[in-house]
């Protein structure tokens, strides 16, 4: 490769790879831009929630008291554990253990299903009390933010299914797992968002 070719490739390549230290961004750039976009949207939601709370302190305090903190705790543990198994799956892929990785992804999805089940139970529990998205500002934001996050969990499960399917059919090479890493990174983003969401909406 000529030095001029290296000079042309380097700026873009530096964004993804740092040749001096062999550090590589896991996954692919497109997924990371998508992740950054999602994080930005949720940042706006989180800040908006915090500001609304300061303008409606009593309504928010009453609203939080009506939430099931235990279900929020279960969901946090479920998502963290799910994320953990996805990290283990990637580790297995690095060792060229694709079938093991698929099994670990399935375990991760079981924990995700626990999250989804508890979340749906929580929603219906509130509906039974006559609480809906129109009840007050707190519950409008509660349903909007948590439902939006739930949609990301569902999309994440589709992505996990896709990477598991690809891994099962040996579509990844141990030296190039960018597709698998991208899917795993998206799932960890979903977990990361809940890490902020849970204390903000349920605890503080």
């Amino acid at each position, binding site marked *: 490769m000529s030095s001029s070719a290296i000079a042309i490739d380097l700026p873009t390549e530096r964004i993804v790879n740092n040749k001096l230290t062999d550090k590589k961004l896991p996954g692919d750039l497109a997924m990371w831009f998508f992740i950054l976009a999602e994080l930005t949207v949720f*940042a706006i939601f989180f*800040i908006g929630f915090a500001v609304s709370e300061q303008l409606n302190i009593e309504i928010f305090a009453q609203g939080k008291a009506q939430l099931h903190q235990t279900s929020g705790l279960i969901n946090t*543990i479920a998502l*963290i554990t799910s994320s953990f198994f996805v990290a283990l799956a990637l580790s297995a892929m690095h060792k060229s253990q694709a079938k093991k990785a698929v099994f670990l992804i399935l375990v991760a999805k079981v924990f995700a299903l626990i999250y989804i089940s508890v979340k749906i139970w929580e929603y219906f529990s509130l509906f039974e009390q006559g609480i809906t998205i129109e009840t007050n500002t707190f519950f409008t934001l509660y349903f909007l933010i948590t439902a939006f996050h739930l949609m990301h969990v569902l999309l994440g499960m589709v992505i996990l299914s896709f990477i598991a399917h690809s891994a099962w059919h040996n579509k990844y090479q141990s030296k190039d797992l960018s597709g698998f890493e991208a899917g795993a990174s998206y799932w*960890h983003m979903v977990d990361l968002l809940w890490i902020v969401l849970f*204390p903000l909406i349920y605890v503080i």
Partner: protein
Amino acid sequence: MQNDKTLKHAISSWLLLIALTIISIFLTNFIENRSVYIISALLIVIVKGQQIVDVFMELNKAPRFWRLLLLSYIVLIPLIIAIIYLV
């Protein structure tokens, strides 16, 4: 060898995340001052976020720009929330 180290790191991180989650629920039992409580809860968020960014997302092995970008998110958002609640 590197993968075993990564595996042990992931397990330690998971245990820390679970422990911090449980601690955050019981914080009100230990901290009466609301400002201290909020700061403590949000500090826990930052530590948990750092574990997910560095260990689960493996950005501790990524180019510094990306690692700092994600870490700054997990520091900045709780910081902004703390300012909104406390100021």
